[in-house]
């Protein structure tokens, strides 16, 4: 594929050390919980200890007697403050069931941690103490915790206002699926469990809200990924006029989807600050967050592949049960549906049938967690391809190569109906195999098998792709999503020649300030140091769609580039005017406009900025400003891909898995800052490995979260993870001027199946053909026992 023309780059493509770091490495930070405002009160929530119950009474009077307590409210006390429930912006079907989700429950609680009342006190300790004095009467109801049981006739209901536990069934069938399976020479079928995870951004959520003072404006600070979406949704939920609400995302400590939401605590703090006329703060404790902040994944996947005699892929069937939890949060039902475009992955096939049932249970709601629907799909297809290769007696790469889209076939419209603009799976794979020492490791594996070593070696492959850069607005509309996927940027040329870039993306670790500075510096031909990037405050960045879905660079970076192009176009007219030349004769390079043929006649872009500020002498038919806005709507998703290889050593006696080496070759298109890209890949891989080996949110039969804190929910430390060797191939995206594809989720999507394929590969000679995630010693040991005849 040919690259789009990119300008000569002094900054783009080069590692620049991050502008973001100085205040972070010295502790001069502004996390939401660091904020202190005069008269600020502290909020604590009273939460249900039961998974499902009728609330028959809430009495806050004893809490009001406690030291420092200023106010306390039950759900019923605040019910008139809500113009609606908390929003679900993705009604995936017309008849989708979505129970009303009030910020504070009034008559029924539906998961452990559902908030029923709130206490406001002068200090955080006093607020926490007073929670114990709120008396809540519960009438227990049966808890629905198992998705399959939830669907059985006569099942208990997760929500008594509904008549079944099914929220929706969504189906998409492409091609003649019956023909594909009826005539198949071989069918491989599996059931995979993609377990529930807890995102665990290391900064817990926090909210501060200040009521109006000099103006009518209410200001809400939140540890959020989505200040713009939050502003609109809180305005609607709480009946506050949108223009009187300012939302600020100050320093935000990671998100991974968990801060891509509109939460009860944000709505309650907004209402409390306005009701009490004083600023309020709430910060979740980690254990509280494990109940009150969204979880991710949680699918039961029944998947089949149909092959011809020659191992050509004919079709794929996917049937999902997706656990919504107790409520539909912002994009809960849409998450699994992204899989409808991703289960086919990099493979050509004639038919794809995708059916997803969204199920309510009495658990914390699920929603987008790093990758959102795509890791689940990628896990299933990459596991299934390995299983099929084994059944067909083929080398796993051979089966992949037989069926993947060849580099000369791009752009390629997949069976799911979307067009992959570019890619080169052959190149990424060749590079990864070489770095990994694939052939040597296969030899060693054979030796260990031959001598019956108790520690077996496994090699896991993941040739993944994903769709990101969310998203073309019209496509989102066709999928019933409630908003568009455009992004906005403003570029201001200051009189002194310095530049302000205002972006609608809202970073929380991704390094936008640095990368956007690189883009703007090259586009405008100004020094990198002369660019400042502002974000995350609706009073400053007045328009935006925020940060998630690996969209920020692909859509937001594109908007920065477009706004800079407009600035340059205006500056060119000013330069032509000042140089008394025709605009057609003006050339622009590295920040300087010159007259073609007379190189001495030139003006810098900074000269034009000053001239237009003075505005004494500028073209008649233009406004005296170079400042420009751009709102861009992508024409397509972007499709990063790559080949990840993992070697694991599995102790067949203890079930202990150790990653011996991990190689990732990613193709994320053009790269703005190689160091930042590498960091994103490292972090992504770590989260995917964590799903494969360590993490699972476990509920007991009564709907209690057994993994309710970091003591029980095992987030890996440095000691639990290996070094990741990363490299890249570069096949530019053809659908945006930067040629970029996005990198935030790639590592997470790729790595989980690479690790599990490696674990299964190690145990293959023992007859093991699946291991339940996480591949803990216990789950591995059980898989070995089951293969031995089930006497575990």
């Amino acid at each position, binding site marked *: 594929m040919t690259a789009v023309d990119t300008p000569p780059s002094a900054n783009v493509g080069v590692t620049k050390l*991050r502008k973001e770091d100085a205040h972070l490495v010295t502790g001069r930070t502004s996390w939401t919980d660091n904020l202190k405002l005069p008269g600020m009160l502290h909020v604590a929530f009273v939460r249900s200890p039961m998974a499902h119950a009728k609330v028959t009474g809430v009495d806050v009077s004893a809490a009001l007697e406690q030291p420092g307590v200023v106010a306390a409210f039950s759900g019923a006390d605040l019910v008139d403050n809500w113009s609606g429930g908390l929003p679900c912006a993705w009604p995936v079907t017309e008849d989708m069931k979505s129970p009303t989700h009030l910020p504070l429950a009034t008559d029924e609680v539906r998961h452990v941690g559902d908030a029923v009342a709130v206490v406001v006190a002068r200090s955080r300790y006093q607020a926490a103490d007073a929670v114990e004095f709120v008396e809540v009467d519960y009438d227990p109801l049966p808890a629905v915790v198992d998705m399959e049981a939830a669907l059985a006739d006569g099942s208990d209901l997760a929500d008594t206002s509904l008549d079944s536990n099914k929220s929706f069934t969504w189906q998409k069938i492409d091609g003649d699926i019956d023909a594909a399976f009826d005539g198949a020479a071989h069918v491989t079928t599996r059931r995979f469990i993609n377990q529930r995870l807890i995102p665990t*951004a290391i900064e817990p959520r926090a909210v501060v809200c200040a009521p109006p003072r000099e103006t009518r404006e209410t200001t809400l600070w939140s540890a959020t990924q989505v200040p713009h979406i939050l502003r609109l949704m809180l305005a609607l939920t709480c009946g506050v006029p949108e223009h009187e609400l300012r939302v600020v995302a100050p320093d935000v400590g990671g998100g991974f989807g968990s801060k891509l939401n509109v939460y009860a605590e944000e709505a309650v703090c907004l209402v409390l600050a306005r009701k009490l006329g004083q600023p309020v703060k709430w910060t979740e404790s980690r254990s509280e967050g494990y109940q009150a902040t969204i979880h991710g994944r949680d699918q039961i996947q029944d998947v089949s592949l149909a092959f011809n005699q020659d191992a050509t892929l004919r079709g794929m069937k996917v049937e999902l049960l997706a656990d919504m939890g107790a409520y539909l949060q912002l994009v809960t039902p849409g998450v699994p549906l992204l899989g409808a475009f991703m289960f086919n992955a990099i493979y050509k096939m004639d038919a794809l049938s995708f059916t997803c049932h969204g199920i309510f249970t009495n658990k914390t709601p699920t929603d987008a967690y790093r990758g959102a629907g795509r890791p689940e799909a990628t896990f299933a297809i990459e596991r299934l391809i390995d299983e099929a290769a084994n059944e067909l007696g083929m080398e796993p790469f051979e089966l992949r190569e037989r069926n993947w889209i060849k580099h000369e076939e791009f752009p390629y419209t997949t069976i799911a109906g979307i067009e992959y603009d570019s890619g080169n799976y052959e190149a990424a794979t060749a590079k990864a195999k070489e770095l990994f020492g694939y052939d040597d490791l296969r030899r060693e594996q054979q030796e260990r098998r031959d001598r019956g070593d108790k520690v077996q070696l496994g090699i896991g492959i993941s040739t993944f792709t994903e769709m990101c850069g969310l998203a073309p607005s019209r496509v989102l509309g066709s999928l019933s999503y409630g908003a568009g996927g455009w992004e906005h940027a403003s570029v201001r040329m200051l009189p002194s020649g310095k530049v302000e870039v205002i972006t609608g993306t809202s970073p929380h670790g991704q390094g936008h300030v640095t990368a956007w500075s690189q883009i703007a510096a090259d586009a405008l031909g100004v020094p990198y140091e002369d660019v400042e990037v502002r974000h995350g405050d609706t009073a400053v960045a007045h328009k935006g769609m925020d940060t998630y879905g690996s969209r920020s660079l692909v859509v937001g970076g594109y908007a920065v580039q477009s706004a800079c192009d407009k600035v340059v176009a205006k500056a060119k007219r000013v330069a032509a005017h000042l140089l008394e030349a025709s605009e057609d004769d003006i050339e622009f390079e590295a920040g300087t406009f010159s007259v073609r043929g007379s190189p001495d006649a030139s003006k810098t872009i900074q000269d034009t900025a000053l001239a237009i500020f003075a505005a004494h002498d500028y073209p008649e038919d233009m406004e005296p400003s170079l400042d420009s806005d751009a709102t861009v709507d992508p024409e397509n998703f972007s499709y990063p891909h790559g080949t990840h290889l993992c070697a694991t050593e599995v102790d067949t006696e203890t079930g202990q898995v150790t990653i011996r080496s991990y190689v990732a070759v990613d193709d994320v298109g053009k790269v703005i800052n190689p160091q930042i890209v590498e960091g994103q890949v490292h972090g992504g891989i*770590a989260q995917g490995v964590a799903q494969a080996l360590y993490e699972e949110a476990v509920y007991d039969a009564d709907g209690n979260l057994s993994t309710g804190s970091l003591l029980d929910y095992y987030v890996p430390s440095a000691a639990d993870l290996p070094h990741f060797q990363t490299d890249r191939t570069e096949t530019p995206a053809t659908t945006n001027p930067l040629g970029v594809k996005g990198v935030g989720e790639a590592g997470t999507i790729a790595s989980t199946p690479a690790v599990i394929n490696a674990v299964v590969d190690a145990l293959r000679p023992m007859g093991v053909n699946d291991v339940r995630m996480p591949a803990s010693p216990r789950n591995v040991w059980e898989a070995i026992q089951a293969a031995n005849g089930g006497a575990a």
Partner: protein
Amino acid sequence: MTKLNITVDGEVHDDDVEPRTLLVHYLRDVVGKTGTNVGCDTSNCGACTVHLDGRSVKSCTVLAVQADGATVDTIEGLADPSTNGDPTAGWHPLQKAFHTEHGLQCGYCTPGMIMAAADLLKENPDPSEDEVRHGLEGNLCRCTGYVNIVKAVRTAAAEMRGEEVSA
């Protein structure tokens, strides 16, 4: 209320606190520190790591009153303040190396990581990759996958040993 005398980042503080106040809450809410973070309620994450009389501790596991009479150093006191003209000149080698090796993304774990690493390097000035990984076992980072944190700690160690550091 209990009287307390603590030296925090070189400044002496006399305060009255409730006896149950955690050191981390004292540092944040009373002293006004912004760099010592809270990431959990089970002493697993290490975001709150500071030095108490020179040794690294998780400040959420210590009561403020237990630190009475002691010296507490936080990330905010780590850089040499005398070179304030150039913001990076006074940085501790670990602060520099986290920056140059991209050992942080959101930065929430970073103060704790750096304070824990500083203590580790006191014990072991030339740790292997494995020793760094095990030495920082008590500190969780969700963003970086640790690869660049390990690199940063070893880079800083080399600088502190006076060795040539490749950029």
